[in-house]
């Protein structure tokens, strides 16, 4: 039996705004659409992966959701590495399928973050004034850093070491917005220029408003199974060629080197497992919580040398028509970012490899790479997916 792991079905819930859905409903709707996409009967699912962690009033942890969706699993994984969880899920799910721990895995995610919390998330603060804070964050919270500020410190250091400019970071946001214009669901679709980005309000120096991702609702699901089982399903399978994950820290103050992420480990390892090099990749889905996130992933994965991300961006490779189109769904920067965007990276990569990306389709797309960043540039998961059986 051919147990090569594949992604057989994908589904998105409603985004960017779905005020009538709570997070649990996003999980459910995405599951329904992923099953409908590939024609798999729900009863066949015998593995379930869910990071949970969407917070608020909803309870969406793995065991609760396994009950709610009634997944009678014999394999469960609740790995939670923040936004990159789903790239880690591909790594774990592929191993479980190859090993025979289960045959068909459902991965779900859902968040009603925009409708529930509004847009203050990135700079809204989580602590009540005068409250006591436990755990490692007690060494950070008294200083009033924001989520944006954490990434800003990485950007500042990159600029200092390598001469990277705000304009180079802005180019990333401009290119992703071009793709968002092609996605009718994207949160922001009007074209922007480098000047728009660098003249937008400064949130945390040196990151401007348009260096930051959108805050949206949304959910997603995908189905993993064996190449054997996928033969009878409705969609062409997408093969997991190589996947890997690594972590350097969790809280930003513990980042060992502010210009190197764990992607410098998980990227090369995923390539080694796939037997491929960056030159083999036709398009990338990079976690774009902030423009600097993209730059650091680009370097970590080996698409350019450390410190050379700025000039690489300047050359236009990441744009529509470039040699390495980035975030063809409009990314977190312009389309959707419900808190943990990593599942959207996998889903869009699958659509590209199937040739279903519409106007945003990358010609001759055979290999796609998804790299998720979770926490504060902390846990980086890399999944390399392909159209051809390895």
């Amino acid at each position, binding site marked *: 039996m051919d147990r090569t792991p594949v992604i057989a079905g994908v589904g998105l819930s409603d985004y960017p705004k779905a005020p009538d859905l709570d997070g649990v409903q996003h999980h459910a709707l995405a599951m329904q659409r992923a099953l409908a996409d590939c024609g798999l009967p729900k009863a066949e699912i015998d593995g379930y992966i869910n990071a949970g962690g969407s917070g608020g009033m909803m309870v969406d942890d793995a065991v609760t959701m396994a009950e709610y969706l009634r997944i009678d699993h014999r394999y469960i994984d609740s790995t939670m590495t923040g936004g990159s969880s789903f790239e880690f899920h591909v790594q774990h799910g592929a191993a479980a399928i190859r090993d025979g721990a289960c045959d068909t895995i459902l991965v779900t995610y859902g968040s009603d973050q925009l409708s529930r919390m509004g847009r203050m998330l990135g*700079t809204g603060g989580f*602590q009540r004034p005068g409250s*006591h804070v436990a755990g490692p964050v007690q*060494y950070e919270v*008294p200083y009033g*850093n924001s989520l944006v500020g954490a990434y800003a410190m990485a950007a500042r250091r990159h600029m200092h070491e390598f001469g990277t400019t705000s304009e180079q970071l802005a180019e990333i946001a401009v290119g992703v917005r071009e793709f968002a214009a092609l996605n009718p669901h994207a949160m922001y679709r009007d074209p922007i220029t480098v000047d728009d980005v660098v003249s937008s309000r400064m949130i*945390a120096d040196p990151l401007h408003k348009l260096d930051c991702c959108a805050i949206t609702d949304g959910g997603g699901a995908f189905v993993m199974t064996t190449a054997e089982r996928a033969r009878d399903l409705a969609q062409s399978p997408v093969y997991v060629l190589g996947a890997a994950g690594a972590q350097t820290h969790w809280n930003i103050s513990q980042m060992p080197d*502010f210009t190197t992420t764990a992607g410098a480990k998980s990227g090369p390892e995923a390539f080694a497992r796939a037997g491929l090099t960056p030159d083999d990749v036709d398009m990338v889905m990079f976690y774009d919580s902030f423009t600097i996130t993209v730059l650091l992933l680009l370097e970590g994965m080996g698409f350019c040398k450390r410190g050379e991300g700025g000039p690489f961006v300047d050359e236009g490779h990441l744009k529509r028509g470039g040699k390495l189109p980035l975030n063809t769904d409009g990314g977190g920067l312009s389309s959707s970012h419900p808190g943990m965007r990593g599942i959207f990276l996998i889903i869009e990569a699958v659509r590209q490899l199937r040739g279903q990306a519409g106007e945003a389709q990358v010609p001759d797309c055979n290999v796609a790479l998804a790299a998720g960043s979770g926490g504060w540039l902390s846990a980086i998961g890399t999944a390399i997916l392909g159209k051809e059986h390895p």
Partner: protein
Amino acid sequence: MSAQVVTGQEWARPKPAKDPVSRVYWEAAGRGELLIQHCPACGNRQWYPRAVCTLCGGDPEWEQASGRGTVYTFTIIRQNYAKPFRDELPYVVAMVELEEGPMMMGNVTDVDVDDVHIGMPVEVYMIEAEAGLGVPFWRPAAG
């Protein structure tokens, strides 16, 4: 060698919840001492304090730091809706590289935010957040 401890200032920011390890750190800061940890087995120095050495897994010991360092990187926070920080904008959050090696997070104060730069020499001072509990802050080094 003790750093200045600013007392009598209203503290509306979140406070650390002292655990068995962190209690030592925060109470020392309340006396004007900046503590880091040193591992006698492997020589590693670390911040924040923990029950184990992050390098070899051994038992770290407390060590008083000089309270001098340089700015490794920083950001100027210009938007933060959380109280009380929203009333203090703009302010600098920095990673300070201590003379002893470890990096720690802090605010750089007593300077125009636009004059803060990477490599800037800074020295520690403490603000008393509640009786016997100090929080380290940074200002440009004298001289």
